């Protein structure tokens, strides 16, 4: 197996992807002592910016959409190629072709092309005025403008985290909003309907209309504008604005023909972080990080997973940047997955992965007070925890998950010393 290519001050390192992971990866190369030429390619015309505020404070109007540029200690020692994307990769010639027809030759390449919003199933319906998705700051600016116009109703298609955040924003703006999802509760696929139902009850308390167990068949138009959704059961919901929040797809199409193992689920990496080809062989000049990287996670028996989490993008990009700069001394990357979601004035946080969980228990706090921690078990081990307005307790549960501690946990906790813990079906469909 070929070894890590040593970069020198004459080398050229290229980062494809001008988001959080690309930026933090580039910084890590510099921190690891790389002094050569460094280029960051980003398909949006903006310097890397922070996305989480886009579905929250930008939509409520607390922040303008263009102020979330990320802090960075990269100064003038980076060449920016913004507003241009990657078109193809020739690993033999070590060149990257860009969408403007130019090419970049690289000695090391960091792939951080991330994801885009999963498109609505009918492209012609998605193009209707009044239909939105949220991924970029330009998307958020467009949706904000539509909300300011006080639509009579907003429909949010998909009750995942982004959908729930948008629905909460609509209620903060006192706009009627309907959240539609095929699951029996919001967040059903991510955290199960047992805990998802508790979150859904909070949304209902805010006045969010719920259409659960329902699927949208069509976005309907009148006079060339979106006017409502037609459900698969034949029902109709009138609305002036639709937000399509069906998750994300990974940006890997440009890797077709590169020989690398990549598809809509991500680009495969080995345990060090190098990308691999169709035969599983690593390319020691190319690493991947962030949403697009599908890597063998040591906490999950080496199963390959791709995580769309902010903290993961930062930590994995730092790892990949160091790796490409020749510093492979650190441990194998395997941080415990974690994320947060701010829905109105409620904070939902998670650590671990709920996938495959066969049990859940409220181990702390009380849903009636909208303040609790739910712990998930799988085959008698702790695998994930979700907190609602209880973030300070979460790191302790992170430790239980990291060490695959027995589930249910034996010890009583300080704020509910004597109550028996009820083990529930987590309610994954």
């Amino acid at each position, binding site marked *: 197996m070929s070894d890590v290519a040593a970069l020198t001050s004459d080398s050229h390192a290229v980062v494809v992807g001008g988001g959080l992971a690309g930026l933090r990866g580039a910084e890590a190369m510099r921190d690891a002592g790389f002094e050569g030429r460094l280029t960051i390619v980003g398909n949006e*015309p*903006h*310097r890397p910016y*922070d996305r*989480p*505020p886009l579905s929250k*404070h930008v939509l409520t109007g*607390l*922040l*303008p959409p*263009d*102020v*979330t*540029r*990320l*802090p*960075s*200690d990269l100064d003038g020692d980076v060449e*920016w*190629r*913004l*507003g241009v994307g990657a078109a193809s990769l020739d690993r033999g010639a070590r060149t990257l072709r860009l969408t403007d027809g130019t090419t970049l030759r690289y000695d090391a390449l960091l792939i951080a092309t991330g994801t885009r919003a999963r498109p609505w199933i009918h492209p012609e319906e998605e193009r209707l005025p009044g239909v939105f998705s949220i991924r970029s700051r330009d998307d958020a600016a467009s949706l904000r403008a539509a909300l300011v116009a006080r639509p009579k109703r907003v429909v949010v298609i998909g009750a995942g985290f982004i959908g729930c955040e948008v629905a909460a924003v609509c209620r903060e703006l006192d706009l009627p909003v309907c959240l539609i999802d095929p699951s029996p509760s919001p967040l059903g696929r991510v955290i199960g309907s047992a805990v998802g139902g508790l979150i859904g009850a909070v949304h209902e308390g805010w006045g969010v209309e719920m259409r659960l167990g329902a699927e949208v068949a069509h976005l309907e138009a009148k006079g060339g504008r979106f006017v409502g959704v037609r459900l698969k059961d034949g029902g109709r919901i009138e609305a002036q604005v639709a937000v399509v929040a069906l998750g994300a797809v990974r940006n890997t199409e440009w890797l077709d023909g590169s020989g690398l193992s990549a598809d809509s689920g991500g680009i495969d990496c080995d345990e060090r972080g190098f990308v691999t080809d169709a035969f599983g062989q690593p390319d020691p000049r190319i690493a991947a990080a962030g949403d697009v990287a599908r890597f063998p996670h040591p906490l999950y028996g080496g199963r390959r997973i791709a995580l769309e*989490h*902010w*903290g993961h993008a*930062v930590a994995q990009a730092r790892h990949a940047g160091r790796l490409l700069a020749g510093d492979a001394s650190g441990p194998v990357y395997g941080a415990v997955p*974690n*994320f*947060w979601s*701010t829905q*109105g*004035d*409620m*904070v939902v*946080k998670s650590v671990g992965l709920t996938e495959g969980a066969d049990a859940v228990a409220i181990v702390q706090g009380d849903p009636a007070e909208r*303040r609790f921690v739910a712990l998930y078990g799988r085959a008698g081990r702790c695998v994930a925890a979700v907190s609602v*307005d209880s*973030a*300070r307790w979460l790191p302790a549960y992170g430790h239980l998950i990291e060490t695959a501690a027995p589930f249910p946990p034996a010890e009583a906790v300080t704020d509910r010393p004597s109550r028996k813990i009820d083990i529930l079906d987590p309610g994954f469909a």
Partner: protein
Amino acid sequence: MPTTDDSRDPTPLRVSVDLNLCQAYAQCCYAAPRHFRLIGREALFYDPAPSADARADMERARISCPVQAIRVEDPDV
């Protein structure tokens, strides 16, 4: 190069908070009350682009964070 980065102050500070780490101890809200506040029990709202004259407040907020979740970029340093 097609870079657009329009903001209120031409050279503001750049701030991001790792909200995974944030545990709502609210020390930043005391250190820099014009730029950080809690919504509800633990939803932190912060200004990601405060003007450069907030430098001292932001530095106080950064240092006072018990979980060291605040990152500030100062264009003049």
